[in-house]
């Protein structure tokens, strides 16, 4: 009990006059009360230092030579030659534009479709039916990309069901997977298939939090269902839409999510539309062993990604009054 009183007395002054104590001193005082909580996060923080921050600084390999088995922060003087190498090479720019195109197209289709699907789900009145559709639509989210791509290959193979339908309709069979012009369609369609249901969760959560009196007021004012959606539902979930959009725009250049699928589906035959930065990094770094070169490429992507995210966050704070930080 006395400890709690003490804690309150400690908390009060710096709540009202934060300038009086430096953050360091406040943490010091706090530590005496809450040291058990401080001890709790020691192991995870060590994990973050080793497995997150050391690799972050390991990006210095973009500027310093790495010798196999040597210093993970490289050796010798700093150099820009690895950057020059990839910036002047055609494969990098092809991969860079493919990353933008694939992510951009995917966002362009997935984002509105997810929102529409959420709005439609929200209109279902039969709870059992609604729950069933939701459960089914979440399924692809939990499936390994290996299985998803295995399915894609089976469905699209020349002896698969889609070509079977084409053949029955008198068309010519298409070997989708090995044709560069089909890659974007396959990528976007399978992406929408996999993320449509899961993407609605946050929207539905936001919708369930809308105050029912708003709908009642709209009904009294003579709004029909469609008008209620346009003037109540959508404005109420706008912060959610904005947050998700920032995250997506921030990920436009990043290829974290796309790597697995592209890697599993592409082949030298389709590089011109399918090769993205992260698969390029993988081929260069892991398969060909050009560690420095690949680090430079990867870091370039990471930095652009961070810039994009910061800009998107800034714009969103200005326009929608919502931001990630």
């Amino acid at each position: 009990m006395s400890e709690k009183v003490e804690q309150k007395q400690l908390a009060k002054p710096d709540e009202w006059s934060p300038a009086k104590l430096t953050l360091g001193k406040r943490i010091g005082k706090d530590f005496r009360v809450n040291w058990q909580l401080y001890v709790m996060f020691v192991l995870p923080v060590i994990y973050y230092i080793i497995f997150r921050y050391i690799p972050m600084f390991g990006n210095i390999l973009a500027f310093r030579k790495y010798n196999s088995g040597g210093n993970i922060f490289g050796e010798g003087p700093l150099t820009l030659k690895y950057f020059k190498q990839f910036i002047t090479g055609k494969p990098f720019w092809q991969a860079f534009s493919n990353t933008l195109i694939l992510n951009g197209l995917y966002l362009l289709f997935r984002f509105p479709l997810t929102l529409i699907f959420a709005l439609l789900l929200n209109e279902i009145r039969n709870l059992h039916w609604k729950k069933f559709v939701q459960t089914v639509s979440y399924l692809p989210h939990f499936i390994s990309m290996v299985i998803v791509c295995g399915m894609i290959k089976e469905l699209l193979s020349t002896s698969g069901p889609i070509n079977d339908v084409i053949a029955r309709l008198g068309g010519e069979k298409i070997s989708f997977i090995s044709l560069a012009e089909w890659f974007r369609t396959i990528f976007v369609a399978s992406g929408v298939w996999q993320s449509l249901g899961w993407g609605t969760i946050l929207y539905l959560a936001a919708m369930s939090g809308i105050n029912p009196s708003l709908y009642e007021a709209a009904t009294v004012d003579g709004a029909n269902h469609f008008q209620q959606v346009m003037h109540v539902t959508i404005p109420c979930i706008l912060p959610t839409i904005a947050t998700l959009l920032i995250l997506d725009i921030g990920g436009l250049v990043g290829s974290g999510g796309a790597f697995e699928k592209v890697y599993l589906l592409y082949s030298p035959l389709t590089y011109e539309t399918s090769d993205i930065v992260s698969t390029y990094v993988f081929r260069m770094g892991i398969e060909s062993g050009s560690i420095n070169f690949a680090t430079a490429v990867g870091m370039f992507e990471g930095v652009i990604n961070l810039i994009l995210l910061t800009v998107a966050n800034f714009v969103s704070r200005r326009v929608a009054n919502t931001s990630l930080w």
Partner: protein
Amino acid sequence: MSESEKTKLKLEEIHIHNPKNKIKDSIGYRVFTVFNTIIMILVAVATLYPFLYLVAQSFTSTQAIIEGYTGLVPKGFNIDTYAYVLTRNDHEFLRYYLNTIIYTVIGTVLSLFFSSILAYPLSKPNLKINRILSPFIIFTMYFGGGLMANYVLMLKLGLKNSMWGFILPMLISTYYVILMRSFFMSIPKDLEEAGEIDGLNKWGVFWFIARPLSTPIIATMTLFYAVMYWNNWFNAKLYLQDKAKWPVAYFLQTIIRGAGANEPDAQNMTANIKSCAMVLTVLPIICVYPAIQKYYVQGMMLGGVKE
């Protein structure tokens, strides 16, 4: 049941049972309802079709597969393919499957532990260090080491060809830590304070009060982490050269990608063999995820709410 779910149910009740409401439904809205139902049926069918197709193929005879059979009813129904997949190459499939189970169980337990001992202190708004700790953790979501720097580090740590090379890179997911933190924040303070008055220290409060109240988020995280370990093949590709250590997802990758060196007979594998392997791998996930749906929906909801 959460508050919002309750109000939603109430709303639903008003909608369904209020006769006034029924009269008010315009023809336009009724047309929309029909249209909406059709769309939902289409979405459900499109989602399930690939799975049903795999199951049908896995039971179809090799003869029918070679002839190009693509129906949803197995032709020449048999379970020989399953028997073949499970026993071929000295039961290698079972070995990969067992590896996956081991990695998933060990990884999930460790991940849950590490994530919660980080998320719990982060959820305390009056903990002064959070002003530093929070950005320290969250920044890693936006910028990271990238593939190469991580790879080089793992080699340096000597984690190549070890189970830890598979587990450690994904031990703590920052996003999941944030979800857990949001849940811990929603635990009523009074309960924790009552625990302290009863003589529990901070660890005691965490273990005996916060943890039992956190079943929804713990169930959610168990599912998310378990699925993550179950599905991962890339860490295996990077760090597990020894075939005896492969998880099943990586084995699937080699047969689906048909990459020559690792799996020379991948080219000769017929669709029914691949389908069997895929069905067996996906089955546990399909069985588990609907059971805890209400928990993860709730968990995602809390996490989505801005702090």
